[in-house]
């Protein structure tokens, strides 16, 4: 990141970066380092928004962004790089337009693709550092391993509800993500989407911390978060710091690494591919069309909603009974006398777990509504609000 950059700034750039240039910690030398720097941001979402905006404003010469999503209404509560007119547009197109308007001096390179074990090393090789703004364990481990393997620092941030985490992994002589978290939690123990949600401003705080760390690494100033794991609690408005040590037995950055190339991260994280449809696989599932037919026919069955009360208040299918998944084991007796049951949640994951619980408990006719209430809204009743 100290490679020879452009010899000087234009007069326009001097004006733009004047508040940096008069600081001893940045100055002309630092601003030229920023101009020569190449940063790759994974994700143009909650964390990626402030990261990309601040790095662009600061004059980082080349900013790469990887994403494959389109802007959705539900993103706008926190993904401030996108605006209401961008809904439906590719996130990269939307982000690039915003960044070009903010600072046309910055070269924004977009990669409309999912980061994969096949493309990560080649992509990372072209950059000085990577900022991780992803949202799932397989990609987190992939970003980490590819950073270690290519020798690029991984400016890490993650968020959940109102708490955030930030650090710098895989810096020279620093620990990596696997040193701290050798294994991901199995999918069944990850908090369900019912417990999810995120305070919209939280990625703003954590992404801004990541952007700060990226800038400090480029400038070579201050004390970076290498070896320090920063925890932020927005409700208590409190920061805490934990030590992270390099694990000599780490499989990717340790003394005897066993991971020498990217692996299959879905498999590593215990995510099994959805099995192909078989003649028996449909027996535990039902469709929203079938549900509609049965409701219209006034069939006798129980429509069980296993979402949370807050979600039930947003929208519901008429006639449904609410028992949140977490309460189901203790409230199973309320289902006495109901043999025939259709179970639904928002998209079908929680209700799949509920059906497994119910079938184990002897409710062998319980069936899962494929696609949940979102499929119901899309295909049966578009007047209900999506969330």
């Amino acid at each position, binding site marked *: 990141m100290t490679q020879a950059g452009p010899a000087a700034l234009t007069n326009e750039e001097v004006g733009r970066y004047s508040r940096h240039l008069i600081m001893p910690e940045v100055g002309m030398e630092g601003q030229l380092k920023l101009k020569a720097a190449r940063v790759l941001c994974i994700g143009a979402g909650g964390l990626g928004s402030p990261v990309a905006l601040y790095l662009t404003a600061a004059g980082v010469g080349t900013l790469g962004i990887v994403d494959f999503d389109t802007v959705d209404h539900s993103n706008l509560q926190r993904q401030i790089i996108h605006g209401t007119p961008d809904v439906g547009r590719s996130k990269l197109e939307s982000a690039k337009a915003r960044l070009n308007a903010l600072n046309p001096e910055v070269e924004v390179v977009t990669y409309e693709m999912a980061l994969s074990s096949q493309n990560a090393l080649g992509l990372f090789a072209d950059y000085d550092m990577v900022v991780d703004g992803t949202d799932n*364990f397989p990609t987190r481990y992939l970003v980490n391993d590819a950073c270690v393997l290519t020798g690029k620092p991984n400016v890490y941030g993650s968020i959940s509800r109102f708490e955030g985490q930030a650090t710098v992994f895989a810096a020279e002589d620093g620990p990596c993500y696997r040193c701290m978290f050798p294994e991901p939690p199995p999918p069944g123990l990850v908090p369900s989407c019912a417990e999810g949600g995120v305070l919209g401003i939280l990625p703003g705080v954590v992404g801004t911390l990541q952007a700060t760390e990226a800038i400090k690494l480029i400038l070579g100033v201050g004390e970076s978060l290498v070896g320090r794991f920063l925890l932020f609690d927005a409700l208590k408005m409190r920061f805490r710091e934990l030590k992270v040590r390099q694990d000599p037995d780490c499989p990717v950055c340790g003394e005897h690494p066993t991971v020498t190339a990217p692996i299959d991260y879905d498999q590593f994280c215990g995510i099994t591919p959805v099995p192909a449809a078989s003649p028996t696989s449909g027996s535990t599932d039902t469709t929203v069309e079938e549900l509609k037919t049965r409701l219209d026919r006034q069939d006798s069955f129980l429509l069980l909603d296993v979402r949370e009360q807050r979600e039930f208040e947003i929208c519901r299918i008429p006639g449904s009974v609410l028992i949140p998944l977490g309460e189901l084991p203790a409230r199973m007796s309320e289902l006495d006398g109901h043999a025939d049951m259709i179970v639904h949640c928002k998209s079908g994951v929680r209700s799949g777990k509920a059906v497994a619980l119910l079938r184990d408990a002897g409710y062998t006719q319980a069936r899962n509504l494929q696609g949940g209430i979102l499929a119901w809204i899309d295909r049966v009743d578009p007047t209900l609000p999506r969330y």
Partner: protein
Amino acid sequence: MATKILIPTPLRGYTDQLDEVEAEGATVGELLANLTTRYADLRKHLYAEDGTRRNFVNIYLNDDDIRYLEKDQTPVTADDTVSIIPSVAGGGWS
């Protein structure tokens, strides 16, 4: 002698929504055993079925990972704070 244990948000559903719980014990291992006796549903999130602690949950004594201290045998006092640090993947991407 009771020591404070900080419970992370994803696990508060198993501790009556408490973000801090006090438990008795002379070592981290004893403390966690007492904690998971009181909050039985928490147990499967901290321990595998064979009783070994799960690898994706980090236990910190103050600001240090007990893996680099004396693991479950690490002594604790009433002045210490034990934290359970989960791995969080979210990025608000989607």
